[in-house]
């Protein structure tokens, strides 16, 4: 199967390259994973990144709510102290600016590996609007199959892609609020300091919304939770 064998049909050649690269990626993932390739749903790096991220995001959200309370953006919304972290503003800021390193370093590792291993492309793309509508209907009527956890349905693809993008936005808007002088160009991109606070808030709201759905579904389909712990 080399080019020396003769000129292959261009499409066949493209297809072969694609398959080969898939194979390469699979073996790359298998190498980091302890489990046999055939049964591994989530390679080890995905699971490690997922749980580190889960911890970091909980601390970021809990402390973020306490920080929000010091100067609320909306009159009708103050987070109960019982669910906010840090006890008061200084404590919350200490938590927030400690967990941010974990969130960002882990996030960079995750996104980099997601791109270079091809996992994002294989698992999350393409997202077709027609599939999303069909799968959404099936989900809401409890007819959505979960037989093969290694393949995401269109709603999952949309939500996972969306939450990754929300993660990028929340980090960039957070940097804009933290460093509106040193990173003033970034802050300007969000429409200035005050606007960046709203962007940061709504990105948080989107992520919290995702977490609610995500955790509920993981509890409804427990084997998906097991897959994220054991990989299988």
């Amino acid at each position, binding site marked *: 199967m080399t080019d020396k064998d003769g000129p292959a049909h261009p499409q066949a050649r493209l297809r072969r390259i694609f398959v080969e690269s898939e194979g390469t990626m699979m073996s790359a993932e298998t190498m980091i994973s302890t489990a046999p390739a055939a049964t591994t749903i989530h390679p080890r790096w995905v699971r490690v990144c997922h749980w580190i991220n889960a911890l970091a995001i909980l601390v970021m959200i809990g402390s973020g709510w306490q920080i929000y309370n010091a100067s609320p953006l909306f009159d009708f919304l103050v987070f109960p102290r019982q669910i906010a972290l*840090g006890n008061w503003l200084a404590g919350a800021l*200490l938590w927030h600016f400690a967990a941010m390193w974990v969130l960002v370093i882990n996030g960079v590792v995750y996104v980099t590996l997601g791109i270079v291993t091809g996992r994002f492309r294989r698992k999350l793309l393409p997202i077709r609007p027609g599939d999303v509508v069909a799968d959404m209907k099936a989900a809401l009527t409890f007819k959505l199959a979960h037989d093969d956890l290694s393949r995401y349905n269109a709603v999952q693809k949309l939500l996972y892609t969306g939450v990754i993008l929300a993660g990028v936005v929340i980090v960039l808007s957070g940097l804009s609020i933290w460093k509106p002088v040193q990173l003033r160009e970034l802050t300007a991109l969000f429409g200035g300091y005050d606007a960046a606070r709203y962007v940061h808030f709504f990105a948080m709201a989107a992520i919290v919304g995702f977490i609610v759905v995500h955790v509920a579904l993981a509890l409804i389909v427990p084997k998906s939770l097991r897959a994220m712990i054991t990989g299988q």
Partner: protein
Amino acid sequence: MRQRRTIPGVDPKLLIKDAARVMPDASRRSFLRGAASLGALTFLTGCDIIDGDTAESVLRKISEFNDGAQAALFSRTKLAPTYPESAITRPFPFNAYYDEDEAPQVDGRTYKLEVAGLVDSKKPWTLEELHALPEVSQITRHICVEGWSAIGSWQGTPLSEFLKRIGADTRAKYVWFKCAEGYTNTIDMPTALHPQTQMTFKFDNKILPRSYGFPMKIRMPTKLGFKNPKYVVAMEVTNTDKGGYWEDKGYNWFSGL
């Protein structure tokens, strides 16, 4: 981190007993309560991460690391955004840890700015002498650690100009400020020398009113509001970090923007 088997959320240590206090005493573990998220965290890790002393000292260490990260990120030449007069927030908010009618009342006729530390001339400065210094103006955004912001207009002399006149050793690490009500504040020398760091005598082209820090505040648009001291009566150029009112209570020391 010690192992525990109890169900998170029902650990009595997690229960909040002082629900109403806005700013608690800087007592031990005051940063560590915050039940639900920590409960979930404890659940996920199986560890009691709110073992107070460890967590608090780790958080303080990371905050010191963040001081270094911010100092590295700080540019001596990068300017804070400036705004047109029409953008000035009116009325500009009064902000302190006390009420407006408790703000210090400094007598401008007897006022003298004391200068100490690594400087050639420790001669105190009268307000008249200070007002005779060259005047620059800035309209910049004051950003509070709480998150809100307001745009103000400040006039005064660049602190770097004053430090030059008193023969300050600008290789020193810090400048420390003391205020009439006892508030203190230490800043890093690079920020002290930043072109927008200003010894401020006027707000909106009028002598500073009492509520905005008469007779002098230090305006630093590159730092959070609480690092901008008002009612300044003394300054010292030093290699010793003398801390500050809020920094000692747990706010990040560098607090750069």
